[in-house]
């Protein structure tokens, strides 16, 4: 068959279609009008019109994280592209596969300070995994397919393709995926077998083993989570997860000791500190996880499985690095474990679990719901229990701050891809558009955005999108009238001088919901909470639930900046005993 000549815009859409794309998030403008014209003339791909380009990228992130597919963004040149920068950086930090198509002024005007021109590839070079400027329509099909390859292989990430308007309008040949060979980017997925054998031997000899898994397990696909669960069970070791890894191992499993890190559980952090063999699987020793580096897990042999060689020995020196896809490596580890009939010394393991149980008995996440004010922890606990009662397993997105940490602590995820949060970059304004993206991907499922009132306002314009596409997203706002996490740090580090962290003149969220033809609900005292949550779950429409919570509540446990894992603050009574060091104050 002779390949048909197509316009650049048609080539873009045909490549998307061939790659299995069914939804894209975007916002039109002058430079991308040819693509919008091509979208008008087809029925395969559904376009979701957001209200600001930043929302499109977060929506695509939510879509990608909850499905394992690539999220697609389409924006115009100049301001369209610059508005996408935050989302691209967010996706880069959290390894989310995104393809962002940006319009560009025609090639002959590039560099002329033309209207709505920006050096998009220059601006986005450090915040994408890779980017392209396509100057010839005959390169377009190759670049499109290559972009999918780059975004999804190795450590996933955002890829941007800058498309000058004249290239979109020019006529060229389409090349199918099968004809494209990516010549220089083919990361290996299989781990070195000798290293895997060495790792298994080391784990089998451990007395205090610990498995610390992260977002890489989720990125590897649902099969990797199953393999992780199997491996943890085989070894009998305790398992902790990072913020990005929640759901990779079932929270209800007895071997799960909670999230680790700055606001992780007492048992998880002490286990990190005291273990003798640490198996890090698809996590990257982030500073929120390690605390003070020179006091980080001083006595352990560290095994690190990661697909990205640059994650190895970046912050923490590891003894046995295994470079490969988590799923493939876990499969081999299980094979070797079975093959060698490895077994951890039962007596040592029992003693280790006794230590673990002693730490657990501290019950570091306990809280008291009393009086007339709703405790945020109580609100989330009830949200989860009532979802269970209604037989729902919600997809949850969060904004960034105290509510995010409480959600991570009190919502127990059983499956991967149910939890979407901005981990690495900590982007306020992520949650609402991300929930929108998740709901587009899973129209029949319950999607809850756990938000703080301040973060929520950062991309609140997307309520209009949610309303237009009748996406039944539930916003669960833990409203404390403060930038809660900022206020907490000011309390702990800056002598309770609450500089610019209180917000006056917040919208009436119930009325806000009504203006967008949504349902607004409010709970201001504990007795109203359950009814509001039940109502929210039941209604098949978008809902904003405004939950007024204790304004002065802090997130505990907490490893203060510059402290080690075994120097946690467990609650308010610890604050005065362990003042934060000068060095700690400098850290973020």
């Amino acid at each position, binding site marked *: 068959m002779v390949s048909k000549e197509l316009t650049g815009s048609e080539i873009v859409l045909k490549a998307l279609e061939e790659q299995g794309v069914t939804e894209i998030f975007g916002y039109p403008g002058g430079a991308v009008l040819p693509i919008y014209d091509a979208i008008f003339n087809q029925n395969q791909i559904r376009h979701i019109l957001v209200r600001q380009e930043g929302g499109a990228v977060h929506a695509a992130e939510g879509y990608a994280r909850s499905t394992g597919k690539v999220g697609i963004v389409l924006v115009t040149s100049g301001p369209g592209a610059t508005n996408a920068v935050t989302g691209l950086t967010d996706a880069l930090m959290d390894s989310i596969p995104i393809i962002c198509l940006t319009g560009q002024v025609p090639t002959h005007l590039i560099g002329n300070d033309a209207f709505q021109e920006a050096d998009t590839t220059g601006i986005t070079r450090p915040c994408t995994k890779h980017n392209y400027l396509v100057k010839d329509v005959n390169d377009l099909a190759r670049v499109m397919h290559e972009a999918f390859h780059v975004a999804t292989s190795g450590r996933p990430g955002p890829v941007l393709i800058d498309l000058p308007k004249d290239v979109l309008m020019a006529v060229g040949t389409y090349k199918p995926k099968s004809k494209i060979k990516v010549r220089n980017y083919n990361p290996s997925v299989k781990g070195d077998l*000798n290293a895997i054998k060495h790792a298994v031997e080391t784990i089998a000899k451990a007395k205090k083993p610990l498995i610390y898994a992260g977002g890489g397990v989720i990125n590897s696909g649902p099969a990797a989570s199953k393999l992780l669960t199997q491996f943890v069970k085989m070894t009998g070791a305790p398992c902790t997860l990072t913020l990005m890894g929640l759901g990779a191992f079932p929270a209800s499993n007895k071997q799960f000791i909670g999230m680790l890190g700055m606001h992780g559980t007492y048992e998880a952090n002490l286990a990190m500190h005291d273990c003798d063999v640490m198996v890090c699987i698809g996590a990257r020793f982030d500073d929120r996880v390690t605390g003070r580096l020179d006091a980080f897990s001083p006595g352990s042999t560290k095994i690190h499985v990661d697909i990205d060689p*640059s994650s190895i020995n970046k912050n923490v020196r590891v003894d046995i690095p295994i*470079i490969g896809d988590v799923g493939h490596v876990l499969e081999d580890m299980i094979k070797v474990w079975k093959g060698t009939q490895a077994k951890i010394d039962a007596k040592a393991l029992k003693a280790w679990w006794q230590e673990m149980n002693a730490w657990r008995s501290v019950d570091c996440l306990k809280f008291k719901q009393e009086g007339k004010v709703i405790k945020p922890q109580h609100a989330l606990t009830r949200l989860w229990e009532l979802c269970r009662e209604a037989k729902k397993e919600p997809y949850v997105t969060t904004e960034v701050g105290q509510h995010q940490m409480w959600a991570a602590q009190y919502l127990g995820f059983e499956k991967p891809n149910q939890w979407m949060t901005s981990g690495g970059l900590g982007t306020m304004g992520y949650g609402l558009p991300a929930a929108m993206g998740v709901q587009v991907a899973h129209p029949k499922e319950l999607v809850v955005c756990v938000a703080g009132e301040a973060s929520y306002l950062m991309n609140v314009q997307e309520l209009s999108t949610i309303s237009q596409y009748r996406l039944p997203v539930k916003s669960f706002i833990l409203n404390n009238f403060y930038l809660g996490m900022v206020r907490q740090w000011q309390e702990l580090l800056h002598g309770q001088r609450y500089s610019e962290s209180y917000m006056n003149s917040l919208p009436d969220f119930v009325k806000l919901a009504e203006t967008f033809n949504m349902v607004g609900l409010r709970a201001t005292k504990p007795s109203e909470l359950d009814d509001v949550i039940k109502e929210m779950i039941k209604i098949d429409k978008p809902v904003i639930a405004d939950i007024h919570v204790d304004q002065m509540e802090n997130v505990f446990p907490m490893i203060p900046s510059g402290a080690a894992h075994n120097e946690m603050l467990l609650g308010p009574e610890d604050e005065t005993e362990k003042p934060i060091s000068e060095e700690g104050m400098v850290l973020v």
Partner: protein
Amino acid sequence: MRGERGPGEICEVNAQNETVNSHTIAVLVDNEPGVLARVIGLFSGRGYNIESLTVAKTDNVNNMSRITIVTTGTPMIIEQIKAQLSRLVPIHNVKDLTIESASVERELALVKVVGEGEKRVESLRIADIFRARVVDSSNESFVFEIVGDTGKLDAFIRLMEPLGLADVSRTGVVAISRGVKAMDVAY
């Protein structure tokens, strides 16, 4: 071959060794717009040093360029630099010529010396000792071309200082491994 590395290779980094050393790194890249910006951006974005950097197209068949970077850091930092470079999509191969093999390093400088009389003669005499060539001369100036390793060039330039050193242009270091082994394109 990207991403494939024996575990031993990384383990060899000595845990106690925090000394900062200079390393010469050779990088094979696609000859395409923006590739140098990616490399430089990586160095500035992550706070690594660039002591010297050279780049030119070296392979017409595959349309590739070779970048030679001289950088400094602890063994852990150098390992990071290599891993971070390898991660860039248009980069095919990265080699640390300082530790992975014996190598030859050369640099070229053009040195302008302005002066008269005895000083002028002295500069010629020293140029002779260093096997520098005169590539331009006027009644009051010479331009010398000198090739050698960085230390030799530094020494020559230092000696020219009192003799009327006016201008220096250096290429930066280029390097290649000794012996039969060549750098793979690594498709």
